[in-house]
């Protein structure tokens, strides 16, 4: 059986770890190239979110490769997002082209539903112990990959040698992918911490401190977006991203309850996991007096579209600028660069004027 994830990045590594425990492996997904994106756009309903279009493009590319047995695995958490409900849509699109196509949910609110979901696909021979080990590796890798991404994003500011940061990040991700047990994951984490401690540190204060909130899926996977932000970090902007795939993967009611309380009146009762994390992080950044909020999300993502006005209210109440960037097939890269650059200019000029006033 060939398994398939949405992208080539960190989700891929984590899902592969889960499948390996169950005695399977993961096919390398097709790269998201311009032609893959075009195929996805042409196949998808125009209102499907950009991430969904990428998935469709990749599925089409898999069909082109001659793949006949594919499984689409979606949504690890209790999200109220259309991404979690694309299974039927995908089956309707690919059912005739690829008769063995199937779609399943993995994960769940607890080990019971997670086991049910795994058994629905892999059969009843999957034991509770196997399920727990599989998810332990999955979450272990998710956590460590998120930690590496968060640290490296900040390191692109803190360390004056971006080449070393890039090399460290690439090597750390490679080691995470090759780790086959919790002990080896722990060793990778220790190794990463030790190397970070040896990196040279920048002494000048940042031009601006920006808190990043938004769509975890697209931020976790689309390195092209983070690459652009890293260029800013190299110029002296401190970027802080506290989200990550683990936010969605590890969310359950018990974890969300304190965050909902923190967000208080900003949230309506019927909100999704993604919105709750974005708003809670935005409030944290505001409380810590960050210079600005950068909201990044996939165009068409319903939870983040709903989160946008809430985030704007949080930013307005806190008196800090916020900019939203929708990433998708309807936006030119030049425009994104313009906005990001102008936003940093704006934050820097505010920061400079405050210093003068003091």
């Amino acid at each position: 059986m060939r398994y398939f994830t949405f992208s080539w990045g960190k989700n891929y590594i984590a899902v592969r770890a889960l499948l390996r425990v169950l005695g399977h492996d993961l096919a390398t997904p097709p790269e998201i190239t311009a032609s893959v994106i075009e195929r996805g756009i042409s196949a998808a309903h125009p209102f499907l979110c950009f991430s969904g279009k990428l998935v469709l493009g990749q599925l089409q590319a898999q069909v082109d490769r001659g793949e006949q047995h594919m499984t689409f695995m979606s949504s690890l958490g209790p999200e109220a997002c259309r991404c979690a409900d694309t299974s039927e849509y995908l089956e309707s699109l690919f059912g005739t082209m690829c008769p063995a196509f199937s779609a399943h949910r993995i994960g769940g609110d607890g080990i019971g539903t997670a086991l049910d979901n795994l058994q629905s696909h892999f059969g009843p021979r999957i034991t509770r112990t196997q399920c727990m080990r599989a998810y332990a590796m999955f979450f272990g890798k998710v956590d460590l990959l998120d930690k590496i991404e968060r640290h490296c994003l900040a390191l692109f500011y803190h360390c004056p040698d971006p080449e070393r940061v890039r090399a460290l990040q690439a090597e750390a991700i490679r080691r995470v992918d090759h780790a086959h047990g919790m002990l080896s994951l722990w060793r990778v984490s220790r190794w990463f911490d030790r190397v970070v401690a040896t990196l040279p540190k920048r002494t000048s204060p940042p031009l601006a401190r920006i808190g990043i909130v938004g769509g975890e899926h697209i931020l976790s996977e689309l390195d092209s977006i983070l690459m652009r932000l890293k260029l800013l970090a190299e110029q002296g902007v401190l970027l802080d991203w506290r989200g990550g795939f683990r936010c969605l993967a590890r969310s359950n009611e018990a974890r969300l309850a304190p965050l909902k309380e923190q967000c208080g009146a900003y949230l309506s009762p019927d909100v999704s996991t993604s919105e709750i994390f974005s708003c809670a992080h935005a409030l944290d950044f505001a409380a810590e007096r960050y210079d600005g909020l950068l909201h990044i999300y996939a165009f068409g993502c319903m939870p983040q579209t709903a989160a946008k006005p809430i985030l704007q209210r949080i930013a307005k109440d806190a008196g800090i600028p916020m900019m939203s960037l929708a990433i998708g097939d309807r936006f030119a890269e030049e425009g994104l660069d313009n906005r990001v650059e102008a936003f940093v200019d704006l934050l820097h000029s505010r920061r400079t004027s405050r210093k003068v006033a003091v």
Partner: protein
Amino acid sequence: MNAQDMVWVGIDVGSISCKVAVLDRSGACLASVYRRTQGRVIEAVKDGVNAVGGVLRSHPVAGCGTTGSARQLVGALVGADVVKNEITAHAYGARHLRPDAQTLLEIGGEDSKIILMRDGLPVDFAMNTVCAAGTGAFLDQLAGRLGIAVEDLGALALQSSHEVAIAGRCTVFAESDIIFKQQAGHRMEDIVAGACRSLARNYLNDVGKGKDIAPPVLLLGGVAANAGIERAFADALGLPIEVPREHNIVGAMGAALLAKSVSRSPSSMRTVESILASDFTTRAFVCDHCSNHCEIVQFVEDGVTVGTVGGRCERWARTATAVAP
């Protein structure tokens, strides 16, 4: 020539036009030029630099800034000291003209933006995405459809006594609507006035949505020359709209002021003769080194690569996008 005679040059090249401004030490504009690029950016810049060449030859150039969507290319061509996005450049330029301005409405050929200023500082902005419905392209299309010069639209709009409603949300729908209104026998001035109002409405519902628009409000960009648009914004906002005399070169002025604030000495700007004589071309390719597949553009002069843009990593040396001083 002495230091008191020093000048700063700003060049703003967008999708439709090339603007050049030369400022003296006090920020007064000694020379300026506005040219349509007609898709030939390098020739338009050479033409623009040549047009202000008299001032540049008689004054020491202390700095040069470029802005607009072609800013990297133009920066490499002229040897700019500062390459800066048009949002920041317009904020600098407008603050120079009207220090107490609180709202800048800027409408260019293919893009439109709103910049909120407070106490002389930009505090918020928004820019249209890929849809050009609220931009000058809409008016160009309208003029073409009606068979009149785009420059004549404003005066025509002011003659209207019964403007008609035009669906301005999309230029395609707008054109259909205009055809229908023409067939229905509406007068041309009423159609033009309706189109101006729909552009203003579309702009305010798109980039202006949720923004705290406060006076003084400046209308900038080439479209600001259209009196019909000015009136439409004034009516829609219920606020007086100011159109500075320099409305179409504010970005270029801002770029010059940014260069002045950097005060790099000596300026890296090339001489007029060197710019005019340069054999400058571009070369584009897709980098296949990783899955990002960046579209790389290299600027080549006399067979030598003098600049590269488009990469998302250090593999291809990129033109710096320094943060505003």
